[in-house]
Structure formats: structure tokens, C-alpha cells
């Protein structure tokens, strides 16, 4: 008799979902917590990721933490450090040409060759970018409205956008396939990329020592352009989903750096592992039916805002993730460009205000609402249940609809115009990314394709602007979004990394919650502590 006490990795789902989430990051600096230690075997770096890569072809792969599978073998044009800094990699410098953030130019390094020996030049980069744009990978829609890519000379690449793109440099980093350069041999036969890497990176993929879905092995690339930055002979990325297994492996020295989990955090700390964290998900109550097509109550802005005030975020965060969850009152996380640093801003818990708004809207007695959620990213749907319970306080009876079949099914259901409300996290390193996510029509954040001219106008201006002017516009957009209450933030959760004693250099930040082990400069890379 079979005894299916199996437990397929929930973390694996997280990984898949994270790819879908488009969580990315821009230039900026910030704080982080660091891990470190001393001693150990310097020749092999053992890493962990909760899920298998969607593809080893950078144009088809995912982003976020899963970029590690391509990052080890491919260099991006621009490197985003753990602290969130944009660092020259294959590109030595970059900038917009002219005003309006529509033309972007990069100067390339001239001493780099691909692992098969062919030179990395502007033509190669253009070919790689053009391949990326037509390959149909999941990230192609996230790199802005690219109209053309051209080599203006041997070492200069120019990218022209149809609309202003304030984040052009970000989209050239390791998290977006556009800036990850594939060699001509790989472009000629993209399927070959699944068994052998064709990049300029510090390592090459070693298919012979790898087992799909279990362990991915990378060997030192002796032709790498900056040998000083190479720290290890071999890097192994193991796929381990179960948080307990991750902890055990990290505790017993099987992993040097691993993704942690809030459920194992305190034990990891007790075991002497270094812990690095960075805020990542901004869990949100998506009030999708803003026109009241399904649920007329949601058409009223006061009702939506009332829900924003009805949530006791401190209690929810404290109960669900005492160490790592934090209340979130704005659509963008603190310390990011666009966050309004003002006590008056954001949805603070105010039950009276909420009830008042409900009464004003004519719903003093409340109403019923169906809330779609899933148990994969929201384990045991605890967050959704807590939100549902809190809404009960202002008379809203929430019918929780759990889509257990997985994230793709959730997305399908969420975009089917059948649900007026959903629970789903957003993630983004600046206002452009966040709003791209939560305002994009046809997505779970906006299935009914709502638009608000005021927000559009503010963002349009912001995308073409720079510096403080852009920040001001972002904050105005943020305030407008708070007023609209289309998306009600609830809590933020963290990405957690466990780091062995003898590893140093692991940093993460709200700007880059998914740091990478390799870097074009030795002091940015994960390295033996000596």
C-alpha cells in the first residue's frame, strides 16, 4: 500500500513564482546585513536554490534568485551588486543620450572573449539582445519598449525605446536576459545552451557533472577576463526546496550559502550560521473589480480605502512571522525611490476610520466578497486568512477561494475576470517596476484593465525625468495610488540567506534582495573569508 506522505517543495513553487513576479532592482545604494566567517575549502562553492532553473538559456530563463544558474556562466553588461549598486561589467559605462530617457548607450569592454574564443564586441551584443527580444522568454516584456538595438561602433551599443524608460540600466543587469550576453555559437544553436554555456562568465556549465533538477555544476573559466575576481574552481548549485532540508544541509556544511526560511531562521542563528536578509515581497490585497462589475461595493473608493484601514498589520506580521515580517502600508517598500517617508502617508490601522468610510459609502452593515488566494506563496494561506478575518471586523464577509493547484492556475483564475479580489505579492526595486507590475492590464493585479489618467500622467512624466524631480513625481503617484486603493498593501516579507562561517561578501538589500555569488570585482563577490 503506498503511503504518500510526500511533500513536494513548497519552496520550489516560490522559486517558480518568483520568476513570474519580475522582481527587480535599480541603481541606488543602501544598507544590508552581512555574514562572514573564516577558513574552509576554497576550491568549491556550494550553493542552493529552491527550484530547478526554467532554462539554462539566459534568454528563456527566469530572473530573481534563479539568475544564479546563468549568472555563473554569463556576464551581464551591468552588474547589480548585493548592495544594489550598478557596477560596470561587460559595459564600462552607460548613459542616456539626450533628454526623455528614450535612447541609451553602453560602452563595451574590448578585451573579452566568449568561452569558445570568439570576441565579445558590439555586434555580438546586438545579436544577443535581438535574439533575446525575439526568443519569447518570460522577461522580454519587462525590459521596456525596445524599438531598436544597434552597434554604433565596435564597442558601443545603442538601445532606442519607444517610450521613456527610466530603468534602462537596470534592465541591462543579470536579472534581465537583455543584458546577459550569449555568444554567437549559442545563438546559432540555442538548444545547445541547455548542455553547454556560451558566455563570457567566470565559470562554464559542466553538464557531465550535473543532474537536471538536482545539481548544477560549473567549472572555472580559464579564459575569463578578470581572473582576480574568480574565487573558486568549481561552483555547485543544488536544488533543495524543503526549508528543513536546507537548514540541515547548511548546518552540516553541505551548503556554503543557502536560501533560508522564516520557519528555520532562529534555529539557523542558534546553529551559528550567518544570516543575511532583505525585504522582498510586498503582500497586497488586490481589489481588482474597481468598476464594480462583479461586486458593486468595490466600485466605491471609500469601501476600498476602508479595507486599507481595517488591517491590523502589526498583529498580522507579529503572529505570522515575528522575526521577518513587517507591516506594509504603501505599494512600495521603505527605502525605495517613491516611498513617502511621512507618518501621515500609508494605510495605518484605524478601525474607526474604516467603519466611518464604510458607513459613508452606505455599507455600514457590510457586504460579502470573494477573495482568491493560493497556498503556495502564502503557506497555509495564513496571510489571506488573517486579512479575511480582519475584514470581518468592518462587516465584510470574506469567502476565501483557495486555488490549490499551483501558481499558474491561480494566475489563470485571477486573470479570468471571475474574482473581485485577490491576495498576491508585488516586488520591485523602484516605482517604475512596482507600477509596471501593479498597473499592467490583464495581470492578476489588474485583470479588469483599470486605468487612472492621473496616475498615468504622473508616471509618464516621471519616466522621462531624472533625479529629485522623478522622485517627487513617484511619490505623488504613490499617494494617488493610496487614494485609489486598488491595491492595499498588507505586510512585507524577507528574502533570507544562511551563510557559512567561512564565506564572506554576501550582502543583500531591498534594492537587490537576490544577490549573486560572482561579481566583476573580487570585493563584491562571495569569497572565502581569510
Amino acid at each position, binding site marked *: 500500500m503506498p503511503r504518500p506522505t510526500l511533500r513536494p517543495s513548497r519552496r520550489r513553487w516560490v522559486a517558480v513564482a518568483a520568476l513570474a513576479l519580475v522582481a527587480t532592482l535599480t541603481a541606488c545604494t543602501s544598507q544590508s546585513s552581512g555574514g562572514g566567517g573564516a577558513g574552509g575549502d576554497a576550491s568549491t562553492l556550494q550553493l542552493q536554490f529552491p527550484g530547478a532553473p526554467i532554462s539554462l538559456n539566459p534568454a528563456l530563463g527566469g530572473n530573481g534568485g534563479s539568475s544564479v544558474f546563468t549568472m555563473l556562466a554569463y556576464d551581464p553588461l551591468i552588474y547589480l551588486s548585493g548592495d544594489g549598486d550598478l557596477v560596470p561589467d561587460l559595459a564600462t559605462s552607460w548613459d542616456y543620450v539626450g533628454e526623455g530617457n528614450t535612447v541609451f548607450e553602453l560602452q563595451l569592454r574590448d578585451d573579452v572573449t566568449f568561452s569558445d574564443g570568439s570576441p565579445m564586441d558590439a555586434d555580438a551584443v546586438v545579436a544577443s539582445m535581438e535574439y533575446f527580444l525575439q526568443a519569447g522568454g518570460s522577461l522580454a516584456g519587462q525590459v521596456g519598449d525596445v524599438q531598436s538595438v544597434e552597434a554604433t561602433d565596435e564597442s558601443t551599443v545603442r538601445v532606442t525605446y519607444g517610450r521613456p524608460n527610466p530603468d534602462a540600466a537596470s534592465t541591462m543587469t543579470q536579472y534581465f536576459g537583455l543584458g546577459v550576453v550569449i555568444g554567437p555559437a549559442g545563438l546559432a544553436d540555442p538548444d545547445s545552451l541547455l548542455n553547454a554555456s556560451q558566455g563570457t562568465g567566470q565559470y562554464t556549465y559542466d553538464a557531465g557533472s550535473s543532474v537536471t533538477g538536482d545539481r548544477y555544476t560549473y567549472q572555472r573559466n580559464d579564459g575569463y577576463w578578470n581572473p582576480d575576481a574568480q574565487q573558486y574552481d568549481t561552483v555547485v548549485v543544488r536544488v533543495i526546496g524543503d526549508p528543513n532540508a536546507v537548514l540541515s544541509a547548511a548546518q552540516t556544511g553541505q551548503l556554503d550559502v543557502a536560501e533560508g526560511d522564516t*520557519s528555520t531562521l*532562529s534555529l539557523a542563528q542558534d546553529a551559528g550560521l550567518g544570516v543575511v536578509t532583505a525585504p522582498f515581497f510586498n503582500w497586497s490585497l488586490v481589489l481588482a473589480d474597481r468598476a464594480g462589475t462583479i461586486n458593486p461595493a468595490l466600485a466605491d473608493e471609500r469601501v476600498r480605502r476602508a479595507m486599507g484601514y481595517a488591517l491590523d498589520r502589526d498583529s498580522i506580521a507579529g503572529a505570522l512571522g515575528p522575526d521577518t515580517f513587517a507591516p506594509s502600508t504603501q505599494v512600495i517598500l521603505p527605502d525605495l525611490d517613491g516611498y513617502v517617508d511621512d507618518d501621515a502617508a500609508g494605510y495605518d490601522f484605524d478601525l474607526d476610520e474604516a467603519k466611518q468610510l464604510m458607513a459613508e459609502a452606505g455599507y455600514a452593515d457590510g457586504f460579502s466578497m470573494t477573495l482568491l488566494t493560493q497556498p503556495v506563496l502564502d503557506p497555509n494561506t495564513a496571510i489571506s486568512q488573517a486579512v479575511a478575518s480582519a475584514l470581518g471586523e468592518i462587516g465584510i464577509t470574506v469567502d476565501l477561494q483557495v486555488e490549490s493547484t499551483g501558481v499558474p492556475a491561480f494566475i489563470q483564475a485571477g486573470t479570468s475576470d471571475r474574482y473581485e479580489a485577490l491576495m498576491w505579492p508585488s516586488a520591485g526595486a523602484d516605482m517604475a517596476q512596482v507600477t509596471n507590475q501593479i498597473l499592467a492590464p490583464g495581470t492578476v493585479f489588474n485583470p479588469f484593465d483599470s486605468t487612472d489618467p492621473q496616475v498615468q500622467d504622473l508616471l509618464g512624466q516621471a519616466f522621462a525625468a531624472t533625479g529629485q524631480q522623478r522622485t517627487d513625481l513617484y511619490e505623488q503617484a504613490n499617494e494617488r495610488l493610496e487614494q485609489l486603493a486598488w491595491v492595499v498593501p498588507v505586510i512585507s516579507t524577507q528574502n533570507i540567506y544562511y551563510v557559512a562561517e567561512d564565506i564572506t561578501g554576501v550582502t543583500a538589500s531591498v534594492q537587490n534582495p537576490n544577490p549573486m555569488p560572482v561579481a566583476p570585482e573580487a570585493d563584491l563577490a562571495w569569497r572565502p573569508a581569510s
Partner: protein
Amino acid sequence: MSATVAATAATAPATAARGSLLRGVLATWRGRTAGAVLLVVVLACLVGAFVTPYDPLAQDLAAARQTPSGAHWLGTDLLGRDVLSRLLQGGASSLVAVLVAVLVRTVVALPLGLAAGHLGGRVDQVITRVVDLVMAVPTIVILLSVLTLFGNDLLIGMAVFGLLGSAGLVRIVRGAALAASQELHVTAGRLMGLSRRQVAVRHVLSRVRGVVIVQTTLFATIALGVQTGLSFLGLGAPPPEPTWGGMVGEAASVVQSYPWLMVPTGGVIAITVLALGVLGDVVRDTTADRSSASGGRSVRRRGRVPAADPGDPDVLLAVRGLEVAFATAAGEVTVVRDVDLDVRAGETVGLVGESGSGKSVVAKAVLGLLPRNGAVVAGSAWWRGTDLTGLRGRGWRGVRGSQIALVAQDPLRALDPTSRIGAQLGELVRVHDRVGRRAARVRVVELLEQVQVIDPAEVARRYPHEISGGMAQRVAIAMALAGRPRLLVADEPTTALDVTVQAEVLDLLRALQAETGMAILLVTHDWGVVADACERVVVLYAGEVVERADAADVFAGPGHPYTRALLDCSPDQPAPDGTLRTVPGTVPPPDAWPTGCHFAARCPRAQDDCTQEGIPMVELAGSRVARCIHPLVPAGQPVGLTLERSR
């Protein structure tokens, strides 16, 4: 044609009525405990939803992750909900889901298994094929797909699980039905004009009940385990409605930081599973009719009083004051008491009695072969200075086989069905003669020749199922002869054989006795066999020796009324009116022996003094010694044998 009843009657007097399974289960404390636990769990879950102190869905985030307290007896969960209330509420849906799995499995498997086992033929072939197919289906792969397909619906998942699990049950029911269909009451059903379906429902079904219940309890535990598994997949019943599986899943996700939650959630599942498991075990034991299945009871042997060795050099085996008891559900029951008998070199002693007289028990006790729940509690069996009842383990070396050997009743069951005759025989030869395989092979042929097997080499190569009953009994005798024993205990050696074969075997025993000079203790219920083979007779009735005498004296005129009555029952000697003479009444079972003479209630000569106190053995005319104070032949004084007992 079997008297096995005689052998088993003593081991299990008053087996709990097989008719009432429930009563049988509740007769054991394990069954009662498990049943009570299950009942409490089920009732609590049924009623619990109405009496819980808290709304199982009510959150109190401020009170999250609390360990037990007066307010929350089992603590609170991640969202501050009361664990006890949730467990009670969740139990109902969890148990319903288990019920669905179990029901689907049973409803699907029972008719198919019955049809396959009872109808046989084409139907059986088709069903067996389908079952093969389903058995080979990778349950997990299917379950994963089904669960993603029907996502939230635990009931559908459980139903599919039940469906997949039904294949195994079909096989088991089929086997049980096949066995049950061999039973005569099933044939009898057909002779009542019942259709095959009616027979299956009325007769076969009730016979497979036990095995189905056992399998079902096991499956229920697995189904509960699967539910827990599903919640890890995130495929349990949709939150916030509590289920046990979902609660364990939630607990497991925080097992490191809030381990307490594992205790009540895992605990209630573990308790339910344990109760189901124990219940299944008890049902199995109850239906298996095997006293030792559950580990068995045993008789307390401390304080056993051995009897003194009479020390007569002519006597090979001297049984004195032998008392054997069996441990049963109703306590310790004495089945044989105060048995004295002697076997001298070269003679054949008949041990005669009806079912339940204890004759086989005596034979088994002599060879130390009592079942585990039986033991000698008093007296001794002296073998030339050794008290056989005191031997354990290696102590039997040099006695069993080489001094005393055994020929059992059913020759086909007395041979190991899985090994060749030559191998079984050779094994014994190697043990006794300490010779190699080659020498043993020669001796095996010799032995088979000795028991007058015509083609010994050929027979040695065969398996027991390839030879006839008569041949098998010859082989069994050869096995007993392998160690050149001085006493052969033959326990109803011809009862299972046809008369013509019986005659041959008796002749063979006689010839062997003449050749080797061994003594034979012949256990039998057949006076004809006694007349044919025995010099002396020991008659047992209801656990006691009632008469001991030379065979000639017994046939000429026994001393004990029981012996007389038994002799007169033979259809050869009807009463003048043409009817057969009978003994009125029945043998009292061991737990209902009367005071005084055990036969008094059925005895035409019984008087008041027969039931006053224990009856001693009395020496009578000729060689007769009888346990009777109103014997059929003139009495002498009480005989020495009994008085010598060092009681």
C-alpha cells in the same frame, strides 16, 4: 474422516462465538480500549462542533502561538485560533473524508472480489486482469495529477485514492471468497436453489467480513496519513475550514519555531491511527481462530509438582500424575489430569478415547510438543531416569527422534510441502547418524525400503503432494525411524487413511516392531485398530484415565462402564431392536468437569457416591485397573500406581 477436532478441542475450548464478531472483539481488553478510543474521537468530533468553546475560525492574533492554558486547553495556532475547537471541527471533515475513501474502496472492491472469487472462470479472469492493471498504476503519479485536477476537493481525492486502493482489496477479498467458496455451507446454498449472487451475498460475504474489516482499518489509517500528506502538497481542504491534515501541515511548517502545535495535531491523528490499528489486530485475531496470533497467553508453570520416578527397569516410559492445562480467554483450564501410564520395551499400548478425552494432549506432552498456551502443570513423564516434562530446548537432543519418535495423524500434512521427501528424510538421517550427504542418501533409500516403499529412489525425489496418502504415511514412518527410536508415538496414524491402506500401515508397524523391537504408543479412537495392534489399552475419558488393562481383557469384558459403552457403540453390534447402542449425553468440556466421576452423568450404573469426591483407580479382576467404584467386574484394592504419586 478426521479427528483433528480432538486435537484442537483441547487447545481452544469455547472459542468466542465466531458468529458475533463484535462480541468477540469486545471480549478483549485491547478491543474494548481501541473501540472506546475511536468512539470517543468520533463522538467528540460529531458533537464537538456544537460545544466548542471558541469559533474554530475566530482569530485572535494577539494570542497566537500559545501553549496550553486554562483558556485554550490545547493552545492556539498561528492565527491565535483555539486548537481544541479546530481539532474537533476538523475531525468531522477529516473522518468523513476517510469514510469516503474507505467506502469507495469497499463498495468497489467487495462485489468485484466476491464475483472473482466466487464465480471464477471468465469473470475471475477479467477482474484479475483489471486488478493487475490498477495495481501497476503508480498511485502517486495519479494522485498528484488528480489532486491538482480537482484541487480543493479533498473528497474527490480521497475517493480516487479509495478507487486505486480497491485493487488490493479485490485481491484479498477474492482470495477469501475463493477459500469461503470451498466451504460446504456455500455448496449447501446452491442446493437451496439460491442464485450464485444470492449465495455470494448470503454466505460468502459473511465469511470475508473479518478480512475486509482488518483491511479496512489498515486502509483507514493510510487514508488518514494520505490526508496529512495532501496538506503538505497544499491540496487539503481549503482554509480556513480546519482539517486534521491541514493542521498538521501548518504545524509542520513551523515545527522548528513553534513545536508545540505538532503535539495536539499529530497526537489526535496518531491516537486515531493507533486505535484503528489495534482494532484491526483484534479483529484479525478474533477471526483467525488462533490462540497465539496475538502473542498468546501462557500457563503459569511455577509450582509444578513433579512425580517420582517409579524406577522400573522394564518400563521405558512412565507417565505419572500428568496434569496439563491450557491458558484460554476464560483463564487456565485443565484438560488432562492424573494420568498414569507405562510403556514397556517392545509392546504396543493403545491410548483410546473420544474427542476431548485428552489422548493427543498426553502424547504431545510426552514429546514436549504442547502448543504455546499449554503446559504440564503437575506430574512427570519419566524416560529411563529423565523427566521429559522438565526438558527444554537442547535438553531434547538425544531424546527426540533417537529415543522417542512421532508419527502424526494426517500423513500429507506431516510432511513439509516445500521440500523433497529425500531431503526431509536425509536431514533427519544426517542429524541422527552424523553422516554426510552421500551416506545419508544411502540410508534414506534403506529407510524407504524398510517401510516397504517400492521405488525408494524415485519416491525420494518427489514432493509430498506428488504421492498418495498411504505412501505419505510410509514416508512419515520412515522419518520416525530415522533415529532408530525405542518408542514410537503414533498419534492416530491411520485415521486419515482408507481402510485398505490402514490395514497395510498397521501391518507395516507390526513388521517394524518385530524387526526393531521398538515400543509403540498408539493413540486411536478405533477399537478395531486397538484389536489389531495393541497388547495393552489405556482408555481416557474427559481428561482422565478411566481404565487400563490388557487388550484381551478389555475386549473380553471391560471394568469401566464407559469402556463398555464405547465398545457397544459399534455399528457391528446393534441392539436386538436393530438400533445402535448409544451413550446418552455429551462429554463434559474441560472447564465443566463435575466433581467425582467425570462419566457419572451418562453412566447407567451411577450412584450418589460417584459424584461425591474424586474417584481413585481401582484394581479389578485380571489386568484391569479402572477409575470406578461400581465397576462391571469385581473390584480389588486401589492400585499402587496412583498412590505412589508424590503429591
